[in-house]
């Protein structure tokens, strides 16, 4: 009886642990692939000739260098200078922040509090709970643009401060180590947060054929809250669109290449647009507006020949991206009714089974 209770507890913890991590292009942890980081590094490489990495900036000492090695290891990219390394580290720390706010991905209560906060949804380009129906799409896109612009404005304002004040400490979590504060270059950190929203708009929305315009925004808060009615609240967030699979021969893990490539191109455009601001010029709104109009514009169904709008009844204007978006939808956390997950998630389930066996063995020895 005691064994059963402990096993049930372990099972419940693992049950909570698994779906919470699959919220956006994944960030790197012990359990998930560093998809946001990869998209951002590729975008950086695309924009590199324009991004001012040779800034004569104040580069502090501290823990950040070792953490940067951890983040950049998979990218196989060696920054040429400490300044470039600090810039990239700060950018990636910002990109990761909205998904874990510096807390471990396995800290379920923190994740849930953050992700369930309706005001937080726009930082992931998702619908807020009040964004209902067709008008909810437009509101969500506007909210996403607003959240993104807020971060860019902060980046620009931080850049106007004296050098020492531009370096700030932010929380960072390594799953096997815990949370600690690291130094970041705040303009790049806030730019990273803006990139997170832009990148998420490719995983959390159905887009036009050329992937430039948004026709429908998905819903996470109500999907995991168990109150989602698709006709009213929109399509449930799906973990299948969060992956970074570029080439795959596994039917269960379809390629997400088109979205990933488009997200990289958009992120590179944004990096180019804000490059002068990173160099110290006050942020130029025409270039940023152009990037947002190019990649984050709401396209109503009427423009695509659907006078009724893009809705469930017409498969969201016959979206070619719908099949993937319906694969592995997010479901209520407390119901533990998760669909099968990808490789990283199945590791968690195997870990759960091992944990249960471990508990059973200990309990047997203790009897």
């Amino acid at each position: 009886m005691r064994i059963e209770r402990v096993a049930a507890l372990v099972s419940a913890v693992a049950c909570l642990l698994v779906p919470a991590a699959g919220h956006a292009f994944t960030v790197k942890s012990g359990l998930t692939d560093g998809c946001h980081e990869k998209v951002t590094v590729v975008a950086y490489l695309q924009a590199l000739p324009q991004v001012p990495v040779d800034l004569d900036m104040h580069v502090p000492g501290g823990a950040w260098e070792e953490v940067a090695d951890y983040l950049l290891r998979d990218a196989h990219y060696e920054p040429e200078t400490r300044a470039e390394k600090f810039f990239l580290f700060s950018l990636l720390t910002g990109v990761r922040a909205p998904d874990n706010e510096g807390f471990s991905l396995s800290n379920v209560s923190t994740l849930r509090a953050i992700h369930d906060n309706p005001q937080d949804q726009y930082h992931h380009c998702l619908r807020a709970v009040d964004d209902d129906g067709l008008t909810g799409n437009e509101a969500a896109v506007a909210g996403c643009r607003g959240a993104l612009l807020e971060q860019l404005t902060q980046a620009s304002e931080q850049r106007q401060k004296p050098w020492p004040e531009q370096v700030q400490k932010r929380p960072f979590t390594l799953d096997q180590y815990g949370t600690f504060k690291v130094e970041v270059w705040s303009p790049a950190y806030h730019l990273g947060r803006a990139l997170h929203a832009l990148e998420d708009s490719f995983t959390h929305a159905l887009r036009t054929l050329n992937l430039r315009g948004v026709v429908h925004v998905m819903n996470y808060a109500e999907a995991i809250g168990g109150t989602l009615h698709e006709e009213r609240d929109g399509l449930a967030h799906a973990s299948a669109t969060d992956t970074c699979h570029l080439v795959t021969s596994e039917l269960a893990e379809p390629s997400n290449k088109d979205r990933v490539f488009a997200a990289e191109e958009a992120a590179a455009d944004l990096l180019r647009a804000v490059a002068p601001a990173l160099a110290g010029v006050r942020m130029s709104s025409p270039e940023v507006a152009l990037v947002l109009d190019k990649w984050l514009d709401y396209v109503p169904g009427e423009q695509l020949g659907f006078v009724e709008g893009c809705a469930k009844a017409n498969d969201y204007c016959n979206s070619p991206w719908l099949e993937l978006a319906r694969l592995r939808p997010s479901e209520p956390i407390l119901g533990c009714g998760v669909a099968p997950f990808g490789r990283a998630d199945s590791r968690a389930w195997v870990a759960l089974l091992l944990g249960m066996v471990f508990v059973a063995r200990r309990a047997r020895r203790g009897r």
Partner: protein
Amino acid sequence: MSGWLARWLPLVLFGCAPEGSLSTLVVSVHYPVAGSGVGGLSSAMQRGVLEARVGSSFVVEEHSPASEQDAVQQLAEALAPRQGRHLVIAGGEVYASALDAHDCELGGSTVLLLDGKPRPCDGLRSVVLEGFAPAFLAGVLALSAESIAPRRLAGVIAAAPSREVTRLLRGFQAGSEYVGGNVQTLQLDPLQPEAVGAALRSLADAVDVLLVAGDAANSLVLQAVREHNAQNPEQVVRMIGLDQDLSVREAELVLGSVVRRYDAEVRSSILAAQVGAFAPGQVLRGYSDGQTELLINPAYAEQALARLPFDGCALCQTLKDAVHQAEPAAEAAVAPGE
């Protein structure tokens, strides 16, 4: 914690599954004869390799031939039978004839050829991204409005002569002529910035719009045009970019950009080769499937295209007809090896 769990849990979480029996992929990159890092195709190849490395592991060997003879020799060495898995990526027409000479003996390597069309072989993928149509449209965009181009004169800045750049320039010239304009070409050596600056200022004085056909020159040209426009506000020069959307760097100056995605081809082929899913064949892609396009700065779309029956269509029939009429003649004018 029990030793049992300590032994097994890390294996489960961090790589219990064996990577398989595939050996490390070796990617042999053969740049166009003009050299690595100069011109659109070379830069795209470099970018594609760098992008593929993000999140994946493979060995890279790079070859920048000084002459056609070097190029043929280096390719022959790469195609000699070797142990392990090899992907050869080559860019430019010279490699097409070299591959034909190999008569499909690829030494067990898979081969990706960019901007060339050799005979089909098992293990060989050739990709040509057709840039004539978007370049033609760029010519139309550049010179169709009197308010933007009162002199009906466009300038082209080319970093290095190559067949793929030449085809683009023919398209741009044909489009410019279609709307009654003319084109002047300036070839730049970006390694001599002082000479470049003077030449650019001189060209900017003479033309209404500049096409920058070589990404190495983008920043230099942008700077020269900014200076020219600051000194001559009554005679503003605008720009058209190549292979990246320049308007996100200079929204008020840039009319649009011709974009080709050779880097995506390189990256996709490397990733496919890594998982044994490399797809041989002859691929011709272009404007119709989004692999090349003209990105138009929305701020100029109405103004620049007002004279034409554009009305929101991606490539309307009048322009389609014009492109089809102009392309064969322009192709014929591109000398072999150009």
